[in-house]
Protein backbone atom coordinates (compact mmCIF):
# COMPACT_ATOMS: atom_id res chain seq x y z
CA UNK A 1 0.00 0.00 0.00
CA UNK A 2 2.69 2.48 1.08
CA UNK A 3 4.79 1.54 -1.94
CA UNK A 4 1.85 2.07 -4.26
CA UNK A 5 1.07 5.48 -2.81
CA UNK A 6 4.69 6.62 -3.18
CA UNK A 7 4.76 5.38 -6.75
CA UNK A 8 1.55 7.23 -7.57
CA UNK A 9 2.82 10.43 -5.99
CA UNK A 10 6.05 10.19 -8.01
CA UNK A 11 4.00 9.60 -11.17
CA UNK A 12 2.29 12.95 -10.54
CA UNK A 13 5.49 14.71 -11.62
CA UNK A 14 5.42 13.62 -15.31
CA UNK A 15 1.68 14.36 -15.44
CA UNK A 16 2.38 17.78 -13.95
CA UNK A 17 5.03 18.34 -16.63
CA UNK A 18 2.51 17.54 -19.37
CA UNK A 19 -0.17 19.73 -17.77
CA UNK A 20 2.39 22.54 -17.63
CA UNK A 21 3.27 22.04 -21.32
CA UNK A 22 -0.41 22.26 -22.25
CA UNK A 23 -1.06 25.37 -20.14
CA UNK A 24 2.10 26.98 -21.46
CA UNK A 25 1.19 26.17 -25.07
CA UNK A 26 -2.27 27.67 -24.55
CA UNK A 27 -0.68 30.84 -23.22
CA UNK A 28 1.71 31.05 -26.18
CA UNK A 29 -1.26 31.07 -28.55
CA UNK A 30 -2.18 34.51 -27.30
CA UNK A 31 -1.89 36.95 -30.21
CA UNK A 32 0.76 39.66 -30.18
CA UNK A 33 -1.87 42.38 -29.85
CA UNK A 34 -2.28 41.27 -26.23
CA UNK A 35 0.97 43.04 -25.39
CA UNK A 36 -0.41 46.34 -26.69
CA UNK A 37 -3.51 45.71 -24.64
CA UNK A 38 -1.42 45.18 -21.51
CA UNK A 39 0.58 48.34 -22.22
CA UNK A 40 -2.70 50.24 -22.58
CA UNK A 41 -4.15 48.79 -19.38
CA UNK A 42 -0.99 49.51 -17.43
CA UNK A 43 -1.06 53.03 -18.84
CA UNK A 44 -4.60 53.39 -17.52
CA UNK A 45 -3.39 52.17 -14.14
CA UNK A 46 -0.84 54.97 -14.15
CA UNK A 47 2.28 53.05 -15.15
CA UNK A 48 4.11 54.23 -18.24
CA UNK A 49 5.79 51.21 -19.82
CA UNK A 50 6.90 50.30 -23.32
CA UNK A 51 5.87 47.18 -25.20
CA UNK A 52 9.42 45.85 -24.85
CA UNK A 53 9.18 46.12 -21.04
CA UNK A 54 5.99 44.09 -20.98
CA UNK A 55 7.51 41.48 -23.29
CA UNK A 56 10.50 41.25 -21.01
CA UNK A 57 8.27 40.86 -17.98
CA UNK A 58 6.31 38.09 -19.67
CA UNK A 59 9.60 36.54 -20.76
CA UNK A 60 8.56 36.79 -24.38
CA UNK A 61 11.97 38.15 -25.41
CA UNK A 62 13.57 34.78 -24.67
CA UNK A 63 13.21 31.46 -26.52
CA UNK A 64 10.10 29.46 -25.66
CA UNK A 65 12.01 26.48 -24.27
CA UNK A 66 13.98 28.70 -21.88
CA UNK A 67 10.78 30.40 -20.79
CA UNK A 68 9.05 27.12 -20.17
CA UNK A 69 11.78 25.64 -18.04
CA UNK A 70 12.27 28.74 -15.91
CA UNK A 71 8.54 28.67 -15.21
CA UNK A 72 8.42 24.91 -14.62
CA UNK A 73 11.41 24.88 -12.27
CA UNK A 74 9.97 27.92 -10.53
CA UNK A 75 6.81 25.95 -9.73
CA UNK A 76 8.79 23.46 -7.67
CA UNK A 77 10.39 26.33 -5.78
CA UNK A 78 6.94 27.75 -5.13
CA UNK A 79 7.50 30.61 -7.56
CA UNK A 80 4.57 30.96 -9.97
CA UNK A 81 5.63 34.37 -11.27
CA UNK A 82 4.26 37.81 -10.43
CA UNK A 83 1.06 39.52 -11.44
CA UNK A 84 1.43 42.18 -14.12
CA UNK A 85 -1.01 44.55 -12.52
CA UNK A 86 -0.84 44.02 -8.80
CA UNK A 87 2.59 44.07 -7.29
CA UNK A 88 2.10 40.66 -5.77
CA UNK A 89 3.31 37.15 -6.46
CA UNK A 90 0.82 34.80 -8.10
CA UNK A 91 1.27 32.27 -5.32
CA UNK A 92 0.27 34.67 -2.55
CA UNK A 93 -2.76 35.81 -4.57
CA UNK A 94 -3.85 32.21 -5.02
CA UNK A 95 -3.13 31.38 -1.41
CA UNK A 96 -5.47 34.16 -0.34
CA UNK A 97 -8.27 32.86 -2.53
CA UNK A 98 -7.77 29.13 -2.27
CA UNK A 99 -9.78 28.85 0.96
CA UNK A 100 -12.96 30.29 -0.56
CA UNK A 101 -12.81 28.02 -3.61
CA UNK A 102 -12.02 24.93 -1.58
CA UNK A 103 -14.84 25.73 0.82
CA UNK A 104 -17.29 26.08 -2.05
CA UNK A 105 -16.18 22.84 -3.73
CA UNK A 106 -16.12 20.86 -0.48
CA UNK A 107 -19.52 22.14 0.66
CA UNK A 108 -20.94 21.27 -2.76
CA UNK A 109 -19.49 17.76 -2.49
CA UNK A 110 -20.91 17.30 1.01
CA UNK A 111 -24.36 18.52 0.01
CA UNK A 112 -24.36 16.34 -3.12
CA UNK A 113 -23.60 13.23 -1.10
CA UNK A 114 -25.88 14.05 1.81
CA UNK A 115 -28.77 14.39 -0.63
CA UNK A 116 -28.01 11.78 -3.24
CA UNK A 117 -26.80 8.78 -1.23
CA UNK A 118 -29.74 8.40 1.21
CA UNK A 119 -32.27 9.11 -1.54
CA UNK A 120 -30.54 6.72 -3.93
CA UNK A 121 -30.54 3.97 -1.30
CA UNK A 122 -34.17 4.66 -0.52
CA UNK A 123 -35.11 4.43 -4.22
CA UNK A 124 -33.25 1.14 -4.54
CA UNK A 125 -34.94 -0.30 -1.45
CA UNK A 126 -38.39 0.74 -2.67
CA UNK A 127 -37.84 0.04 -6.36
CA UNK A 128 -40.77 0.96 -8.67
CA UNK A 129 -42.84 2.50 -5.87
CA UNK A 130 -44.47 5.89 -6.36
CA UNK A 131 -41.81 7.64 -4.30
CA UNK A 132 -39.10 5.96 -6.39
CA UNK A 133 -40.66 7.29 -9.59
CA UNK A 134 -41.12 10.76 -8.12
CA UNK A 135 -37.55 11.04 -6.90
CA UNK A 136 -36.16 9.72 -10.18
CA UNK A 137 -38.24 12.09 -12.27
CA UNK A 138 -37.10 15.02 -10.17
CA UNK A 139 -33.50 13.92 -10.54
CA UNK A 140 -33.81 13.85 -14.34
CA UNK A 141 -35.23 17.37 -14.29
CA UNK A 142 -32.39 18.51 -12.02
CA UNK A 143 -29.86 17.18 -14.51
CA UNK A 144 -31.34 19.27 -17.29
CA UNK A 145 -31.43 22.60 -15.42
CA UNK A 146 -28.53 24.91 -16.20
CA UNK A 147 -26.93 25.89 -12.88
CA UNK A 148 -26.32 29.48 -13.82
CA UNK A 149 -29.95 29.94 -14.87
CA UNK A 150 -31.28 28.65 -11.55
CA UNK A 151 -28.74 30.86 -9.82
CA UNK A 152 -30.05 33.86 -11.75
CA UNK A 153 -33.62 33.01 -10.77
CA UNK A 154 -32.57 32.49 -7.15
CA UNK A 155 -31.05 35.95 -7.19
CA UNK A 156 -34.08 37.54 -8.88
CA UNK A 157 -37.23 36.08 -7.33
CA UNK A 158 -36.50 36.04 -3.58
CA UNK A 159 -35.29 39.61 -3.94
CA UNK A 160 -38.50 40.47 -5.77
CA UNK A 161 -40.87 38.73 -3.38
CA UNK A 162 -39.25 38.95 0.04
CA UNK A 163 -36.47 41.51 -0.48
CA UNK A 164 -33.97 38.80 0.43
CA UNK A 165 -30.51 38.50 -1.06
CA UNK A 166 -27.61 36.35 0.12
CA UNK A 167 -24.82 38.37 1.77
CA UNK A 168 -22.40 39.78 -0.77
CA UNK A 169 -19.37 40.39 1.40
CA UNK A 170 -17.01 37.57 2.12
CA UNK A 171 -16.19 36.72 5.72
CA UNK A 172 -13.74 33.96 6.52
CA UNK A 173 -15.20 30.83 8.09
CA UNK A 174 -12.89 31.19 11.06
CA UNK A 175 -13.95 34.73 11.96
CA UNK A 176 -17.71 34.29 11.59
CA UNK A 177 -18.87 30.80 10.64
CA UNK A 178 -22.58 31.64 10.54
CA UNK A 179 -22.23 34.65 8.28
CA UNK A 180 -19.84 32.64 6.12
CA UNK A 181 -22.19 29.68 5.77
CA UNK A 182 -25.09 32.03 4.98
CA UNK A 183 -23.10 33.17 1.99
CA UNK A 184 -21.90 29.76 0.85
CA UNK A 185 -25.02 27.70 1.43
CA UNK A 186 -27.05 28.86 -1.59
CA UNK A 187 -24.25 28.63 -4.18
CA UNK A 188 -23.09 25.24 -2.98
CA UNK A 189 -26.65 23.91 -2.94
CA UNK A 190 -27.06 25.11 -6.53
CA UNK A 191 -23.76 23.56 -7.50
CA UNK A 192 -24.89 20.31 -5.91
CA UNK A 193 -28.24 20.14 -7.73
CA UNK A 194 -27.24 18.87 -11.15
CA UNK A 195 -24.58 16.57 -9.73
CA UNK A 196 -27.15 15.20 -7.28
CA UNK A 197 -29.43 14.08 -10.10
CA UNK A 198 -26.66 12.18 -11.79
CA UNK A 199 -25.24 10.65 -8.63
CA UNK A 200 -28.61 9.61 -7.24
CA UNK A 201 -29.27 7.57 -10.35
CA UNK A 202 -25.84 5.92 -10.09
CA UNK A 203 -26.35 5.04 -6.42
CA UNK A 204 -29.74 3.55 -7.22
CA UNK A 205 -28.62 1.43 -10.19
CA UNK A 206 -25.52 0.11 -8.46
CA UNK A 207 -27.36 -0.68 -5.22
CA UNK A 208 -30.07 -2.51 -7.15
CA UNK A 209 -27.37 -4.69 -8.66
CA UNK A 210 -25.81 -5.52 -5.30
CA UNK A 211 -29.22 -6.19 -3.75
CA UNK A 212 -29.59 -9.15 -6.12
CA UNK A 213 -26.41 -10.82 -4.84
CA UNK A 214 -26.43 -14.08 -2.89
CA UNK A 215 -24.85 -12.59 0.23
CA UNK A 216 -27.75 -10.16 0.54
CA UNK A 217 -30.20 -13.07 0.44
CA UNK A 218 -28.12 -14.82 3.07
CA UNK A 219 -28.18 -11.71 5.21
CA UNK A 220 -31.98 -11.55 4.91
CA UNK A 221 -32.33 -15.20 5.85
CA UNK A 222 -30.18 -14.62 8.91
CA UNK A 223 -32.81 -12.12 10.05
CA UNK A 224 -30.72 -8.97 9.79
CA UNK A 225 -32.80 -5.77 9.73
CA UNK A 226 -33.34 -3.79 6.54
CA UNK A 227 -31.40 -0.73 7.63
CA UNK A 228 -28.33 -2.78 8.46
CA UNK A 229 -28.55 -4.70 5.19
CA UNK A 230 -28.80 -1.53 3.16
CA UNK A 231 -25.92 0.24 4.85
CA UNK A 232 -23.48 -2.49 5.86
CA UNK A 233 -24.06 -5.01 3.07
CA UNK A 234 -25.50 -3.34 0.01
CA UNK A 235 -24.08 0.18 0.14
CA UNK A 236 -20.57 -0.79 1.13
CA UNK A 237 -20.37 -3.07 -1.88
CA UNK A 238 -21.90 -0.48 -4.17
CA UNK A 239 -19.48 2.24 -3.17
CA UNK A 240 -16.70 1.77 -5.76
CA UNK A 241 -18.70 2.97 -8.78
CA UNK A 242 -20.12 5.78 -6.65
CA UNK A 243 -16.62 6.93 -5.68
CA UNK A 244 -15.64 6.86 -9.36
CA UNK A 245 -18.58 9.13 -10.18
CA UNK A 246 -17.67 11.49 -7.34
CA UNK A 247 -14.05 11.67 -8.52
CA UNK A 248 -15.15 12.26 -12.09
CA UNK A 249 -17.41 15.11 -11.02
CA UNK A 250 -14.56 17.24 -9.64
CA UNK A 251 -13.52 18.96 -12.91
CA UNK A 252 -17.15 19.84 -13.53
CA UNK A 253 -17.55 21.15 -9.98
CA UNK A 254 -14.52 23.38 -10.45
CA UNK A 255 -15.90 24.65 -13.76
CA UNK A 256 -19.21 25.32 -12.00
CA UNK A 257 -17.45 27.07 -9.14
CA UNK A 258 -15.98 29.56 -11.62
CA UNK A 259 -19.52 30.60 -12.52
CA UNK A 260 -20.95 30.47 -9.01
CA UNK A 261 -18.07 32.50 -7.58
CA UNK A 262 -18.65 35.20 -10.14
CA UNK A 263 -22.38 35.16 -9.56
CA UNK A 264 -22.36 35.21 -5.77
CA UNK A 265 -19.39 37.51 -5.38
CA UNK A 266 -17.19 34.92 -3.70
CA UNK A 267 -13.53 35.92 -3.86
CA UNK A 268 -12.15 32.57 -5.01
CA UNK A 269 -9.68 31.44 -7.64
CA UNK A 270 -12.42 31.09 -10.26
CA UNK A 271 -13.45 34.72 -9.88
CA UNK A 272 -9.79 35.72 -9.95
CA UNK A 273 -9.23 33.70 -13.14
CA UNK A 274 -12.05 35.39 -15.04
CA UNK A 275 -10.95 38.77 -13.77
CA UNK A 276 -7.35 38.17 -14.81
CA UNK A 277 -8.40 36.95 -18.24
CA UNK A 278 -10.35 40.19 -18.71
CA UNK A 279 -7.31 42.16 -17.66
CA UNK A 280 -4.99 39.93 -19.71
CA UNK A 281 -2.92 39.26 -16.62
CA UNK A 282 -1.53 36.04 -18.04
CA UNK A 283 0.89 34.96 -15.30
CA UNK A 284 -2.07 34.87 -12.86
CA UNK A 285 -4.19 32.91 -15.37
CA UNK A 286 -1.40 30.37 -15.75
CA UNK A 287 -1.13 29.99 -11.98
CA UNK A 288 -4.89 29.60 -11.46
CA UNK A 289 -5.27 26.94 -14.17
CA UNK A 290 -2.28 25.07 -12.79
CA UNK A 291 -3.69 25.07 -9.25
CA UNK A 292 -7.01 23.70 -10.50
CA UNK A 293 -5.22 20.99 -12.47
CA UNK A 294 -3.22 20.04 -9.37
CA UNK A 295 -6.44 19.79 -7.35
CA UNK A 296 -7.91 17.45 -9.98
CA UNK A 297 -4.72 15.35 -10.00
CA UNK A 298 -4.73 15.01 -6.21
CA UNK A 299 -8.43 14.06 -6.18
CA UNK A 300 -7.79 11.37 -8.81
CA UNK A 301 -5.01 10.01 -6.62
CA UNK A 302 -7.25 9.96 -3.53
CA UNK A 303 -10.01 8.22 -5.49
CA UNK A 304 -7.63 5.50 -6.68
CA UNK A 305 -6.28 4.93 -3.18
CA UNK A 306 -9.75 4.86 -1.62
CA UNK A 307 -10.68 1.84 -3.75
CA UNK A 308 -8.36 -0.23 -1.60
CA UNK A 309 -9.80 1.22 1.58
CA UNK A 310 -13.38 0.39 0.54
CA UNK A 311 -12.69 -3.04 -0.87
CA UNK A 312 -9.58 -4.76 0.54
CA UNK A 313 -9.76 -7.34 -2.25
CA UNK A 314 -8.77 -4.72 -4.83
CA UNK A 315 -5.22 -5.40 -6.03
CA UNK A 316 -3.14 -2.26 -6.42
CA UNK A 317 -0.48 -2.70 -9.04
Amino acid at each position, binding site marked *: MGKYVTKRILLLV*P*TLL*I*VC*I*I*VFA*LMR*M*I*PGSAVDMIVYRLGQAGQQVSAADVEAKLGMDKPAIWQFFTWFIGIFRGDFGTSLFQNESVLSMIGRQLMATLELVILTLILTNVISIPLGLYCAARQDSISDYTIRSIS*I*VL*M*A*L*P*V*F*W*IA*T*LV*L*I*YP*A*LWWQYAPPATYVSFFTDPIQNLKMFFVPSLLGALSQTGHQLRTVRTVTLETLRQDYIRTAWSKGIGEGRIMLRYAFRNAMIPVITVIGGSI*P*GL*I*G*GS*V*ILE*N*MFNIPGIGAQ*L*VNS*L*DNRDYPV*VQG*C*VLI*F*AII*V*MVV*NLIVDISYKWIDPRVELE
Partner: protein
Amino acid sequence: MKDLFKKKPMGALGLILLALFVLVAIFADVLAPYPMVNGNMTVDVIHKLEPGSAEHLLGTDSLGRDVLSYLIYGARTSVILGICCTILSTLISIVIGVTSASIGGKFDLILQRFVDGWQCIPGMLILIILMNIMGNGLVQLILAMAIPAGIGGSRMIRSSAISVKDAGYVKMSGILGGNVWWKMLKHIIPNIMPVILMGLAGSLGGVIMMEASMNFLGYGVDPGTPSWGYMITNQGRSNMYVAPWLALYPGILISIMVFASAMFGDAVRDLMDPRLKGGIGSYNSKKIAKIAARMGKKQTV
Protein backbone atom coordinates in the same frame (compact mmCIF):
# COMPACT_ATOMS: atom_id res chain seq x y z
CA MET B 1 -35.73 3.50 -35.25
CA LYS B 2 -38.77 1.28 -34.74
CA ASP B 3 -37.17 -0.03 -31.56
CA LEU B 4 -36.76 3.52 -30.32
CA PHE B 5 -40.49 4.22 -30.47
CA LYS B 6 -41.53 0.79 -29.24
CA LYS B 7 -39.16 0.20 -26.36
CA LYS B 8 -38.04 3.66 -25.33
CA PRO B 9 -40.98 6.08 -25.29
CA MET B 10 -38.96 8.68 -23.39
CA GLY B 11 -36.17 8.49 -25.95
CA ALA B 12 -38.71 8.92 -28.74
CA LEU B 13 -40.13 11.95 -26.95
CA GLY B 14 -36.61 13.37 -26.80
CA LEU B 15 -36.15 12.80 -30.51
CA ILE B 16 -39.47 14.47 -31.31
CA LEU B 17 -38.62 17.49 -29.16
CA LEU B 18 -35.20 17.79 -30.82
CA ALA B 19 -36.79 17.51 -34.27
CA LEU B 20 -39.20 20.24 -33.24
CA PHE B 21 -36.34 22.54 -32.27
CA VAL B 22 -34.61 21.85 -35.58
CA LEU B 23 -37.81 22.66 -37.50
CA VAL B 24 -38.26 25.89 -35.55
CA ALA B 25 -34.64 26.75 -36.34
CA ILE B 26 -35.08 26.10 -40.07
CA PHE B 27 -38.37 27.98 -40.38
CA ALA B 28 -37.48 30.77 -37.96
CA ASP B 29 -38.12 33.46 -40.58
CA VAL B 30 -41.65 32.22 -41.16
CA LEU B 31 -42.53 31.49 -37.55
CA ALA B 32 -41.22 34.62 -35.89
CA PRO B 33 -43.92 37.31 -35.57
CA TYR B 34 -41.24 39.98 -36.04
CA PRO B 35 -38.69 38.46 -38.46
CA MET B 36 -35.13 39.68 -38.85
CA VAL B 37 -34.46 42.43 -41.38
CA ASN B 38 -31.00 42.22 -42.95
CA GLY B 39 -29.83 39.92 -40.16
CA ASN B 40 -30.94 42.27 -37.38
CA MET B 41 -33.86 42.04 -35.01
CA THR B 42 -36.41 44.83 -35.16
CA VAL B 43 -35.66 47.34 -32.43
CA ASP B 44 -38.46 49.40 -30.93
CA VAL B 45 -37.15 51.34 -27.97
CA ILE B 46 -40.45 53.01 -27.16
CA HIS B 47 -42.05 49.65 -26.35
CA LYS B 48 -39.20 48.30 -24.25
CA LEU B 49 -39.51 45.89 -21.29
CA GLU B 50 -43.22 45.39 -21.79
CA PRO B 51 -44.89 42.32 -20.30
CA GLY B 52 -46.72 39.88 -22.57
CA SER B 53 -49.59 41.32 -24.62
CA ALA B 54 -51.51 40.48 -27.78
CA GLU B 55 -48.93 42.33 -29.87
CA HIS B 56 -45.88 40.82 -28.20
CA LEU B 57 -46.93 37.45 -26.82
CA LEU B 58 -44.00 37.11 -24.44
CA GLY B 59 -43.26 40.81 -24.03
CA THR B 60 -40.24 42.80 -25.15
CA ASP B 61 -36.64 43.18 -23.96
CA SER B 62 -34.66 46.30 -23.10
CA LEU B 63 -34.26 47.24 -26.77
CA GLY B 64 -37.94 46.66 -27.49
CA ARG B 65 -37.23 43.47 -29.41
CA ASP B 66 -40.03 40.90 -29.44
CA VAL B 67 -39.04 38.15 -26.98
CA LEU B 68 -40.87 35.39 -28.85
CA SER B 69 -39.06 36.20 -32.11
CA TYR B 70 -35.77 36.45 -30.27
CA LEU B 71 -36.30 33.02 -28.72
CA ILE B 72 -37.19 31.51 -32.10
CA TYR B 73 -34.00 32.88 -33.65
CA GLY B 74 -32.12 31.77 -30.55
CA ALA B 75 -33.20 28.21 -31.33
CA ARG B 76 -31.44 28.58 -34.67
CA THR B 77 -28.18 29.59 -32.98
CA SER B 78 -28.45 26.73 -30.49
CA VAL B 79 -29.20 24.16 -33.17
CA ILE B 80 -26.35 25.28 -35.44
CA LEU B 81 -23.98 25.32 -32.50
CA GLY B 82 -25.11 21.97 -31.17
CA ILE B 83 -24.89 20.19 -34.50
CA CYS B 84 -21.58 21.70 -35.64
CA CYS B 85 -19.96 21.19 -32.26
CA THR B 86 -20.98 17.58 -31.83
CA ILE B 87 -19.92 16.68 -35.38
CA LEU B 88 -16.59 18.49 -35.15
CA SER B 89 -15.76 17.11 -31.72
CA THR B 90 -16.67 13.59 -32.82
CA LEU B 91 -14.38 13.96 -35.85
CA ILE B 92 -11.54 15.10 -33.59
CA SER B 93 -12.22 12.17 -31.25
CA ILE B 94 -12.16 9.72 -34.16
CA VAL B 95 -8.92 11.08 -35.56
CA ILE B 96 -7.15 11.00 -32.18
CA GLY B 97 -8.69 7.79 -30.88
CA VAL B 98 -8.39 5.71 -34.03
CA THR B 99 -4.88 6.78 -35.02
CA SER B 100 -3.69 6.31 -31.46
CA ALA B 101 -5.16 2.82 -31.32
CA SER B 102 -4.13 1.66 -34.78
CA ILE B 103 -0.57 3.00 -34.83
CA GLY B 104 -0.01 2.00 -31.21
CA GLY B 105 3.43 1.72 -29.62
CA LYS B 106 5.31 4.84 -28.53
CA PHE B 107 3.00 7.12 -30.50
CA ASP B 108 0.02 5.83 -28.55
CA LEU B 109 1.84 6.07 -25.23
CA ILE B 110 2.94 9.68 -25.67
CA LEU B 111 -0.39 10.83 -27.14
CA GLN B 112 -2.30 9.21 -24.30
CA ARG B 113 -0.14 10.93 -21.68
CA PHE B 114 -1.11 14.23 -23.30
CA VAL B 115 -4.76 13.26 -23.21
CA ASP B 116 -4.32 12.38 -19.51
CA GLY B 117 -2.77 15.75 -18.81
CA TRP B 118 -5.45 17.54 -20.80
CA GLN B 119 -8.16 15.85 -18.76
CA CYS B 120 -6.63 17.10 -15.52
CA ILE B 121 -7.48 20.66 -16.58
CA PRO B 122 -11.20 21.34 -16.06
CA GLY B 123 -12.86 21.77 -19.48
CA MET B 124 -14.49 25.05 -18.52
CA LEU B 125 -11.09 26.69 -17.96
CA ILE B 126 -9.72 25.58 -21.33
CA LEU B 127 -12.87 26.90 -22.91
CA ILE B 128 -12.68 30.37 -21.43
CA ILE B 129 -8.97 30.63 -22.20
CA LEU B 130 -9.55 29.62 -25.83
CA MET B 131 -12.41 32.09 -26.11
CA ASN B 132 -10.26 34.79 -24.57
CA ILE B 133 -7.57 34.12 -27.16
CA MET B 134 -9.86 33.84 -30.19
CA GLY B 135 -12.49 36.44 -29.29
CA ASN B 136 -16.27 36.14 -29.45
CA GLY B 137 -18.22 34.75 -32.39
CA LEU B 138 -20.08 31.69 -33.56
CA VAL B 139 -17.17 30.00 -35.37
CA GLN B 140 -14.78 30.65 -32.53
CA LEU B 141 -17.27 29.27 -30.04
CA ILE B 142 -17.75 26.11 -32.10
CA LEU B 143 -13.98 25.59 -32.28
CA ALA B 144 -13.41 26.34 -28.59
CA MET B 145 -16.10 23.90 -27.50
CA ALA B 146 -15.33 21.16 -30.03
CA ILE B 147 -11.58 20.89 -29.40
CA PRO B 148 -11.68 20.11 -25.63
CA ALA B 149 -14.73 17.86 -26.03
CA GLY B 150 -13.06 16.05 -28.91
CA ILE B 151 -9.88 15.37 -27.00
CA GLY B 152 -11.83 14.20 -23.95
CA GLY B 153 -14.06 11.94 -26.02
CA SER B 154 -11.15 10.29 -27.84
CA ARG B 155 -10.65 8.02 -24.84
CA MET B 156 -13.75 5.95 -25.43
CA ILE B 157 -13.18 5.71 -29.17
CA ARG B 158 -9.58 4.61 -28.61
CA SER B 159 -10.56 1.81 -26.24
CA SER B 160 -13.22 0.47 -28.57
CA ALA B 161 -10.86 0.78 -31.56
CA ILE B 162 -8.27 -1.28 -29.65
CA SER B 163 -10.78 -4.04 -29.07
CA VAL B 164 -11.66 -4.10 -32.78
CA LYS B 165 -8.01 -3.89 -33.87
CA ASP B 166 -7.18 -7.40 -32.69
CA ALA B 167 -10.15 -9.01 -34.42
CA GLY B 168 -9.36 -11.63 -37.07
CA TYR B 169 -10.63 -9.67 -40.05
CA VAL B 170 -8.43 -6.66 -39.31
CA LYS B 171 -5.35 -8.89 -38.96
CA MET B 172 -6.31 -10.68 -42.16
CA SER B 173 -6.55 -7.36 -43.97
CA GLY B 174 -3.02 -6.61 -42.78
CA ILE B 175 -1.75 -9.96 -44.06
CA LEU B 176 -3.38 -9.33 -47.42
CA GLY B 177 -1.31 -6.17 -47.68
CA GLY B 178 -3.62 -3.49 -46.24
CA ASN B 179 -1.58 -0.73 -44.57
CA VAL B 180 -2.47 1.07 -41.34
CA TRP B 181 -4.63 3.71 -43.05
CA TRP B 182 -6.59 1.17 -45.10
CA LYS B 183 -7.31 -0.87 -41.98
CA MET B 184 -8.39 2.25 -40.12
CA LEU B 185 -10.79 3.54 -42.75
CA LYS B 186 -12.11 0.27 -44.11
CA HIS B 187 -12.31 -1.90 -41.02
CA ILE B 188 -11.85 -0.14 -37.70
CA ILE B 189 -14.03 2.97 -38.13
CA PRO B 190 -17.08 1.16 -39.59
CA ASN B 191 -16.93 -1.33 -36.75
CA ILE B 192 -16.85 1.21 -33.95
CA MET B 193 -19.72 3.21 -35.47
CA PRO B 194 -22.16 2.38 -32.60
CA VAL B 195 -19.76 3.91 -30.07
CA ILE B 196 -19.35 6.97 -32.26
CA LEU B 197 -23.10 7.41 -32.67
CA MET B 198 -23.62 6.97 -28.94
CA GLY B 199 -21.20 9.81 -28.31
CA LEU B 200 -22.92 12.00 -30.90
CA ALA B 201 -26.39 11.55 -29.43
CA GLY B 202 -25.27 12.10 -25.86
CA SER B 203 -23.16 15.22 -26.16
CA LEU B 204 -25.69 17.61 -27.69
CA GLY B 205 -27.22 18.69 -24.39
CA GLY B 206 -23.84 19.41 -22.86
CA VAL B 207 -23.00 21.76 -25.73
CA ILE B 208 -26.20 23.78 -25.32
CA MET B 209 -25.70 24.02 -21.56
CA MET B 210 -22.05 25.01 -21.96
CA GLU B 211 -22.86 27.75 -24.48
CA ALA B 212 -25.41 29.23 -22.10
CA SER B 213 -23.01 29.14 -19.16
CA MET B 214 -20.19 30.69 -21.20
CA ASN B 215 -22.40 33.68 -21.91
CA PHE B 216 -22.49 34.41 -18.24
CA LEU B 217 -18.71 34.85 -18.17
CA GLY B 218 -18.91 37.19 -21.14
CA TYR B 219 -17.82 34.74 -23.82
CA GLY B 220 -20.09 33.54 -26.57
CA VAL B 221 -21.56 34.51 -29.89
CA ASP B 222 -21.63 38.13 -31.03
CA PRO B 223 -24.17 40.24 -29.13
CA GLY B 224 -26.09 40.70 -32.40
CA THR B 225 -26.71 36.97 -32.77
CA PRO B 226 -29.77 35.91 -30.77
CA SER B 227 -28.78 33.39 -28.11
CA TRP B 228 -30.72 32.04 -25.15
CA GLY B 229 -27.73 32.16 -22.84
CA TYR B 230 -27.02 35.76 -23.79
CA MET B 231 -30.62 36.67 -23.07
CA ILE B 232 -30.53 35.20 -19.57
CA THR B 233 -27.28 36.86 -18.63
CA ASN B 234 -27.55 40.23 -20.26
CA GLN B 235 -31.23 40.98 -20.58
CA GLY B 236 -32.46 38.89 -17.65
CA ARG B 237 -29.89 39.89 -15.08
CA SER B 238 -29.66 43.57 -15.81
CA ASN B 239 -33.44 44.00 -15.88
CA MET B 240 -34.17 41.47 -13.21
CA TYR B 241 -36.40 43.67 -11.09
CA VAL B 242 -38.32 45.28 -13.94
CA ALA B 243 -38.79 42.30 -16.25
CA PRO B 244 -38.04 39.06 -14.44
CA TRP B 245 -39.62 36.99 -17.23
CA LEU B 246 -36.69 37.78 -19.51
CA ALA B 247 -34.55 35.32 -17.58
CA LEU B 248 -37.31 32.76 -17.22
CA TYR B 249 -38.27 31.83 -20.80
CA PRO B 250 -34.87 31.11 -22.37
CA GLY B 251 -33.91 29.02 -19.34
CA ILE B 252 -36.99 26.86 -19.73
CA LEU B 253 -36.13 26.32 -23.41
CA ILE B 254 -32.53 25.38 -22.58
CA SER B 255 -33.77 22.91 -19.95
CA ILE B 256 -36.20 21.30 -22.39
CA MET B 257 -33.53 20.93 -25.04
CA VAL B 258 -30.98 19.50 -22.61
CA PHE B 259 -33.61 17.14 -21.22
CA ALA B 260 -34.64 16.01 -24.70
CA SER B 261 -31.12 15.31 -25.82
CA ALA B 262 -30.31 13.48 -22.57
CA MET B 263 -33.36 11.23 -22.98
CA PHE B 264 -32.58 10.60 -26.63
CA GLY B 265 -28.90 9.93 -25.87
CA ASP B 266 -29.78 7.46 -23.11
CA ALA B 267 -32.19 5.60 -25.37
CA VAL B 268 -29.65 5.39 -28.20
CA ARG B 269 -27.05 4.08 -25.78
CA ASP B 270 -29.39 1.44 -24.39
CA LEU B 271 -30.39 0.31 -27.88
CA MET B 272 -26.85 0.20 -29.23
CA ASP B 273 -24.92 -1.19 -26.29
CA PRO B 274 -24.43 -4.87 -27.19
CA ARG B 275 -24.61 -5.89 -23.54
CA LEU B 276 -28.13 -4.49 -23.25
CA LYS B 277 -29.27 -5.32 -26.76
CA GLY B 278 -30.32 -8.92 -26.29
CA GLY B 279 -28.86 -12.18 -27.57
CA ILE B 280 -27.20 -14.94 -25.62
CA GLY B 281 -24.63 -12.65 -24.07
CA SER B 282 -27.24 -10.50 -22.41
CA TYR B 283 -29.37 -11.34 -19.44
CA ASN B 284 -32.60 -10.96 -21.32
CA SER B 285 -34.45 -14.01 -20.03
CA LYS B 286 -37.22 -13.89 -22.64
CA LYS B 287 -34.74 -14.02 -25.48
CA ILE B 288 -32.73 -16.81 -23.87
CA ALA B 289 -35.93 -18.82 -23.41
CA LYS B 290 -36.77 -18.25 -27.08
CA ILE B 291 -33.37 -19.41 -28.25
CA ALA B 292 -33.50 -22.39 -25.92
CA ALA B 293 -36.94 -23.31 -27.24
CA ARG B 294 -35.71 -23.10 -30.85
CA MET B 295 -32.69 -25.24 -30.07
CA GLY B 296 -34.87 -27.77 -28.34
CA LYS B 297 -37.11 -27.96 -31.39
CA LYS B 298 -34.16 -28.53 -33.68
CA GLN B 299 -32.94 -31.40 -31.57
CA THR B 300 -36.29 -33.15 -31.58
CA VAL B 301 -36.59 -32.80 -35.36
